[in-house]
């Protein structure tokens, strides 16, 4: 029996609301970047929200997440409060990582969010370790590892998939295949472009999912998690998706057609799910407006929270370089 989400009004509101929160948060981030409130590298998730939301809905509190530098969506969907997240983007002391990490390094112990990792592929071995810990302790948690298709070429992908499969660890590998790694289209970097087939070569059950359809992602994640909790070992999802914006704020996007981008925008996961939900009578247009307004207000509040935050004192520069104790 495959797990299925119960798509009632409440759940539809949740799915759409979460995607809207992410979208609005990031659009504001883009503005704040041009205002130089946010600095460094900023990688937006706009267009890919269905993946984060679909996966997060399928998770329990015992599960953990390992993410990438494109992790705002993952963080919000996982339940990290928007205020501290925005404060982290600012580098403020009231940010999730006390501002030390910034956009690429969001960590949150409470929600078992094991970071924001800016080394492509660098998170996969960590997820294997989280899964191993869970297995050794006999816990029920699953380690979910999110990464882009660009990471698949790295050796750490290969070593991690093999290790997880060999040891039958509770790890859900989620490849968000948005077809580009910076300016490199997947055909220019992978001899086998169907990523899920690579996963199969480790004897890991793998599925390709429409990553622009939040329900499809949730269904796939629920199924995979059920199999993992049933002892089937690691599972793999390849979510086919697309980033609507540039790789980072420095990218002129000379490597792809505008027309291609427009075609994908027609599949915008938010509009698509919104249209479907209103057409099917599950939600009213007014519901969507209310969600949008709530999200917008939440973003405003998050910005205010970040603005109000203090800076870490310079005297504390070296703090946490060595830890005094393992946090309880």
């Amino acid at each position, binding site marked *: 029996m495959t797990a299925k989400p119960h798509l009632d009004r409440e759940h539809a509101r949740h799915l759409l609301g979460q995607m809207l929160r992410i979208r609005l948060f990031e659009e504001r981030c883009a503005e704040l970047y041009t205002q130089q409130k946010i600095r460094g590298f900023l990688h937006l998730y706009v267009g890919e929200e269905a993946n984060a939301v679909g996966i997060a809905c399928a998770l329990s509190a015992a599960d953990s997440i390992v993410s990438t530098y494109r992790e705002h969506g993952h963080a919000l969907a996982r339940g990290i409060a928007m205020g501290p997240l925005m404060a982290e983007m600012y580098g403020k002391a009231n940010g999730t990582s006390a501002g030390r990490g910034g956009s690429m390094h969001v960590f949150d112990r409470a929600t078992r969010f094991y970071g924001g990792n800016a080394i492509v592929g660098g998170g996969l071995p960590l997820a294997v370790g989280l899964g191993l810990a869970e297995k050794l302790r006999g816990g029920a948690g699953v380690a979910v590892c999110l990464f882009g298709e660009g990471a698949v070429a790295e*050796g750490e992908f290969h070593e991690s998939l093999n290790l997880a499969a060999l040891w039958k660890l509770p790890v859900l590998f989620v490849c968000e295949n948005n077809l580009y790694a910076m300016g490199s289209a997947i055909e220019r970097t992978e001899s086998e472009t169907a990523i899920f087939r690579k996963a199969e070569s480790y004897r890991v059950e793998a599925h390709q999912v429409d990553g622009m359809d939040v329900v499809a992602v949730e269904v796939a994640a629920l199924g995979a998690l059920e199999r993992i909790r049933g002892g089937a070992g690691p599972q793999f999802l390849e979510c086919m998706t697309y980033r609507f914006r540039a790789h980072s704020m420095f990218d002129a996007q000379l490597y792809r057609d505008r027309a291609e981008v427009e075609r994908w925008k027609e599949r915008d996961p938010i509009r698509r799910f919104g249209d479907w939900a209103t057409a099917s009578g599950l939600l009213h247009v007014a519901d969507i407006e209310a969600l949008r307004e709530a999200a917008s207000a939440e973003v405003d509040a998050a910005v205010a929270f970040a603005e109000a935050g203090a800076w870490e004192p310079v005297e504390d520069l070296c703090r946490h370089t060595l830890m005094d104790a393992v946090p309880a």
Partner: protein
Amino acid sequence: MTTTYREAIKQAIRDALNRDERVFLMGEDVGRYGGCYAVTKGLLEEFGEARIRDTPLSESAFVGAGIGAAMAGLRPIVEIMTVNFSLLALDQIVNNAATIPHMSGGQFAVPLVIRMATGAGRQLAAQHSHSLEGWYAHIPGLKIVAPATLEDARGMLWSALEDPNPVLIFEQVNLYNMEAELAADAGAVPLCGAAVRRAGRDLSLVTYGASLHKSLVAAQLLATEGIEAEVIDLRSLRPLDDATIMASLARTRRILVVDEGWRSGGISAEICARVAEQGFYDLDAPPARLCGVEVPIPYPKHLEDAAIPQVETIHAAALELVRPSGRST
């Protein structure tokens, strides 16, 4: 002609591609994207896909492939986006590139050039901002250079390609936009040999890369206070040009090493050790260091700034060395 450090490197690559058909460029997003710091923009159109090669995210394999191609007689230029990612290729660099010439009894050379961005100053946090060039300088079999001027950026790439050994070129990220005059026919610059960028008599500021420019500003400031600092640009971190350092020391009798890299075991340590060994009797005061603070570089500007040498801290450290506030010499 006024141009940028970025353009100077591009011109050096272009020259090399035109000069020597064995040269090719390979790395992540060097082609279509034009390079993560836009250094190689336009080269793909100019030289085609065979010689401007976009690679997958596979640092170990494409660096290793560069080594293999070099052993086979080509002259690859491999770009690693930043030194932080080069750790993924370290096995190839240290266990192969640096050892094979010796291990093979001199049968195979590895005439490979690896370029990478290094350093902090762009708020990219702890996985994109480190300065590991001094660390690499520990490894025999490698040559390590860190050009700080447009002339050097252009001319040292040239020399690196003519060197029979693996040469790692470190480009501090804040230099890419630096503008300066550069002669259209600027030529090769040797890989060894520090440069005295400013003459002085009161102390020697020994530095390289982006810290050179901060040190020069600090030296100007010091001059207004009657202190003449000699500023030495190491240019090459392996080998080190001991002679130039010791000659300067003999003149100034005081030395401050300024290095964005971490202090313990950094290149600054080696310089101080050599100064103590070779220049002990010339020293009027202990050799001093101003280095990166030993912390993973944090994201916020005020902490990042505090983590690496700045004009003010260089100035203060120099002043303390020449006119100690505390104990007397």
